[in-house]
């Protein structure tokens, strides 16, 4: 479904991603883990069209989308929950969700989708008139996730979904990802919670200093010495 081929990304003279190759197949949950500053967010930004890669390609559903503008990429069916949620602070919860359905095809269906999101996060319905900037950290992440579902995506990319959530909510958020998968949405996630994400994902990649150093089934990674030492503290 999503294929990244020998992608290189630099900020000015500083190269951040080095020959990154990975793929996400339809119906999978794939995790990308790595230390702070490894380049995870940069990779998602490059896929989503927010930064232009120096070389390499990104293919989605057989179409080469390298260098497309970010709005063109959303239109292809990729929803991206950026790091920190990036809500519209001075808009209400409802308006933030509506913005998620901004695309022409989604806009007409926004009310049905809204109902679905409210079903998943009843709290958002309660708070629909509240300004996004007045939400708590966990509520914000819920809203950000709800908003990314409003476009009816085929692939959802989540950058640190569990950021700022209480442990119990993290569990729920991870369960949510499985629900999404069961509803036909492929999931690509970045997480600080390495153990938990490896437990729910089908496959995972490990990014270190801008290079993919290992990848494979989560079970295998959970057993590998390197992952256990570097990420699980075992």
């Amino acid at each position, binding site marked *: 479904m999503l294929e990244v081929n020998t992608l290189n990304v630099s900020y000015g003279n500083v190269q951040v991603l080095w020959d990154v190759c990975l793929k996400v197949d339809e119906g999978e949950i794939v995790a990308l883990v790595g230390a702070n500053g490894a380049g995870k967010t940069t990779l998602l930004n490059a896929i*989503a069209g*927010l930064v232009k890669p120096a070389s390499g390609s990104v293919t989605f559903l057989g179409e080469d989308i390298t260098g497309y*503008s*970010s*709005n063109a990429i*959303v*239109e292809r069916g990729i929803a*991206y929950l*950026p790091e920190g949620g*990036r*809500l*519209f*602070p*001075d*808009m209400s919860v409802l*308006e933030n969700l*509506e*913005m*998620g359905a*901004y*695309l022409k095809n*989604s*806009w007409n269906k926004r009310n049905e989708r809204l109902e679905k999101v409210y079903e998943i996060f009843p709290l958002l319905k309660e708070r629909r008139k509240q300004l996004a900037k007045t939400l708590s950290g966990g509520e914000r992440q819920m809203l950000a996730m709800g*908003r990314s579902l409003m*476009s009816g995506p085929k692939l959802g990319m989540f950058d640190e979904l569990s950021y700022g959530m209480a442990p119990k909510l993290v569990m729920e958020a991870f369960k949510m990802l499985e629900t999404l998968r069961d509803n036909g949405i492929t999931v690509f996630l970045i997480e600080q919670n390495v153990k938990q994400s490896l437990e729910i994902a089908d496959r995972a990649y490990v990014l270190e200093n801008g290079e993919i150093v290992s990848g494979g089934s989560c079970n295998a990674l959970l057993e590998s010495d390197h992952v256990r030492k570097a990420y699980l503290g075992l």
Partner: protein
Amino acid sequence: MTSIINILVNGLILGGIYALTSVGLSMQYGVARIFNIAHGEFIMVGAFITWMLYTSFGINPLLCLVVAGPVLFILGFIVHRYLFKTLKDKTPVPTAFEGNSMLLAFGILFIIQSLGIYLWGTQIKGYSFMAYSIYLGGIRFSANRMLILFFAVFLCVLFYLFLTRTRPGKAIRAAAQDPEAASLMGVDINKMLALCFALGAMMAGFAGVLLSMAYQLQTNMGLPYTIIAIIVVVLGGLGSIPGSMLGGFILGIIGSIVNTIDPGLTLAAYYLLFMILLLVRPSGILGR
């Protein structure tokens, strides 16, 4: 009593025009990050289009709203598409863009003003339209000014509803708050910036049409209106549309009061207020 009501109503009329001239500028700055010094020139063009259509062809000035509006929208769109967009592509640093865009706007100011002088000369122009009095509750008001007030409020409300209730309006507000996140929602940012600029020029055009019905016109009238709009925008809070509307009416009423003391002091009073504001509350009334 009568005179107090008169001063207030005159203030509201002036305020209506100020509000209308300022919302466009506020949006252009809030979303497109363009400090459009040429804003007043779009007001001048709107006013002169109306004057020309009325005095040469007898076309009703109110009808000119539907002529001048689209003309200025298109003019604004072209100016953004070919000038500001090009500048933005060449200046990747946002703060540098803000500075350079102001310089570019200065250029546009002089070009539009010169074209205006070429077409319409430098003499004071005007026409009389609905220049009669109406009596409301025994108090005399001039009909054309009441019409200006009505349409200024009406257009402001319409503009506000557009921003808060419609899909493109919400996209404009989202883009003002976080352009990158808006683009992740599928908003085409470049299109949105051009739309903002065009809408701002259109609102300026509307203001020009309305004020031409009761005030004198001159091809160099643009800059004073720009300066007043800047004061209003700062008064209301940079980038806040409701703030600009409120600020417009407040400044109008202040202007009307000072006007009864000595008309020559009006601009000085505006500047005084502006300076006090910058020192005491630079974020404006409704600013963040």
